[in-house]
């Protein structure tokens, strides 16, 4: 049975887009493709339907109209599952404006499939394993990022700057915290 379904699945995949549609809409096509859809959905915690838990850092980014560029970048880099894990994760989320402030063409260039690894590194540079409020971050001098590089933490008056980017809002998440920042933090390498 499973073998058959898997074969069916492979055939269905030829029409990838069709399959994607099914994923969006599991209700309508349930009879023949349920297993297919489940298999695809079960490729990570990012795809668990859960309206009982506090939104995770990925959901928060997705819910924000100011972070569409970031979300698109996360998806292009294939990092969704890393952001929904138990963490704890602290994400410094540059706004659309912050991305727009980069030299023209930078974002479009990074979103190209051949730059996936580069994009992933830049995004990981915005993630710390940890969960600290803006206030608490003042205790740090630097943070070790998922990019394997450090970023500096600076306090100027009431403001906290991480890797030169100012924290302008903070939203606590089910698996950590999202600090909205006004700049894209570029790794040294």
């Amino acid at each position, binding site marked *: 049975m499973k073998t058959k379904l898997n074969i069916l699945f492979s055939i269905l995949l030829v029409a990838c887009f069709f399959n994607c549609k099914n*994923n969006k809409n599991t209700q309508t096509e349930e009879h023949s493709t349920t297993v297919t859809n489940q298999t695809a959905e079960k490729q990570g915690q990012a795809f668990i339907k859960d309206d009982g838990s506090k939104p995770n850092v990925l959901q928060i980014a997705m819910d924000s109209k100011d972070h569409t560029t970031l979300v698109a970048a996360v998806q292009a880099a294939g990092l969704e599952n890393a952001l929904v894990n138990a963490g704890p994760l602290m994400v410094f989320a540059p706004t659309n404006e912050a991305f727009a402030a980069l030299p023209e063409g930078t974002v479009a260039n990074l979103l190209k499939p051949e730059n996936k690894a580069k994009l992933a590194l830049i995004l990981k540079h915005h993630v710390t*394993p940890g969960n600290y409020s803006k206030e608490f971050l003042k205790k*740090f001098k630097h943070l070790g990022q998922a990019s394997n590089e450090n970023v500096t933490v600076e306090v100027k008056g009431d403001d906290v700057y991480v890797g030169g980017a100012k924290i302008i809002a903070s939203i606590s998440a089910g698996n950590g915290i999202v600090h909205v920042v006004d700049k894209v933090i570029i790794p040294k390498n």
Partner: protein
Amino acid sequence: MKQIFKLSVGFLMIAMAFTSCNNSKSSKSNSALNSNAAEKVYVAPGEYDEFYAFISGGFSGQLSVYGLPSGRLFKVIPVFSQDPEKAYGYNEETKPMLNTSHGFIPWDDSHHPDISQTGGKLDGRYVYINANNTPRIAKIDLTTFETTEIIEIPNSAGNHSSSFVTENTEYVVAGTRFSVPIPQRDMPIKDYKGNFKGSLSFLKVNPENGEMSIKFQLLMPGFDYDLSHPGRGKSHGWFFFTTYNTEEANSLLEVNASQNDKDFIAAINWKKIEEYVNNGGGTKIPSEYAHNLYSDENHTATSTMMHEVLQVKPSDVPGAIFLLPTPKSPHGCDVDPTGEYIVGNGKLSANLTVHSFTKMLNAIENKKFAGEAYGIPILKFEDVLAGVVEQPGLGPLHTEFDGKGNAYTSFFISSEVVKWKLGTWEVLDRKPTFYSIGHLMIPGGNSANPFGKYLLAMNKITKDRYLPTGPEVTQSAQLFDISGDKMELLLDFPTIGEPHYAAGIPANLITANSKKLYKLEDNKHPYAAKSDADTKVTRNGNEVHIQMTMIRSHFSPDNIEGVKVGDKVYFHVTNLEQDYDVPHGIAMIGANTSELLIMPGQTETFVWEPKQVGVWPFYCTDFCSALHQEMQGYVRVSPSSSDIKLSWSLGDDF
């Protein structure tokens, strides 16, 4: 909540379209490969699994025995926690097993099982496993699958970098996680730095019977010691420990212990220290700890309090201990089957660091040190580095090896297993785990001879993977076939407690030695009744001892009178059966303890303190025979002032 979801529908649509395409691709390759996954894990009824997997129970305190590839659970061996099912820690015989210098401890957190070895190969004699909370190491005998020894580790706290065996089971090693004042004393916590010490204990194993004794305790700087593995082959004689919190912070470690870019792997030449100790080196320090041994002869455990340990300071044995800088709070410390490579899984690092044993020896010989910590030479990172696996994933925890030149590392944050090649450090394959893998296991993984057919991933989180069971859902193990170039997910199955680590072994190394029953004639329990003629009830003050037998399908005696309120009644029950798989159980109404579950030829004891006058029944709790429901009896309990004499009988009214 729902509103938020509705608002985000637009983004989700785009997201799902994008991501499900990606994921569909990966499932395509999965499905093409795993078309016969079911066949590969199917073990037909009555057939045996190829491997045993001993999977730790984590906060259950126990050790579970599974079959691979089927994922079938055979037994949960009680080790550090009471188990009412088997009366472990409840009956009088096994209570001493849980004795410690802190008194009787009914629970612990079991972590890292390791199977005994001879010549670098698994020998299938014993499993050793550590208790993390109240530091102890247990030995499980693989002829009976029972815990037969528990030794407490003094001057240790959070016994985590344990319980790994050297290649001839010369030693079982138990490293502390916490550094503490040694000896324990009343002092301000803030004075931790420089004053607290981390103890690494080397337990000598008696080759005859596997019994442990603390040979020496090495007093290391006040770091946290996370995991360890022995050298093997060329590096046999060394032991490697990962450290973190080399900052020596005593509060908010998640911040303060992550300040240094590099912590250390401590390389310890235990042969050199052993030699020093054998020549009279070391200092005997008063330390209280319990050593508990269970005997299959009298089916009884004894607990002995020990009063001192031999301690060695690094400065006592120059040239025996070195520190290898290793990035970012390494967790797993894993040595490849050749003994050349030492992998440090820096859990906050995005790269994997691999050290070379040969380079380490060269650096030591040339005395190329970067500095020292508390007198221990620190080697230069570049001098000992064999290679780096660049950006393999997020949150590396632990690496095992297949014996074919490949390594497999678990990544907690990115929730995946990554296969990479030793020597070239290239990533060969990656597979997601569902979800948040901790450790992984390849049978024989901690030996010179891994059996690189299966890999077991142990996951902390399952969320939607199984039918929901309320807020608490099971953790899981996931079985991969690693015999091909690409890993193939075959199966996942629920585990008991938290599966921290596991040890796997080909079944044929164990099955022939597995005991079927205990010989009644060899039973040396002081209260054994080996036939009906031996049964009796005796009084000693308010203590009543019932020496009872059980056989299909009666207890002897089954009518007892003369027991009084306020008595302490000991039921010493011997199973007279000499037939495989015929245990009997016994339980007494109102007894403040568990049942007994007694194997053929064995004697066990429970205590009942009757509080109410009456005639109270007991019965067999294990469906033993066609007449199981007839297997029962009565005890008459009279007022404390009663002068009814003790009497007992079986079948007198017939």
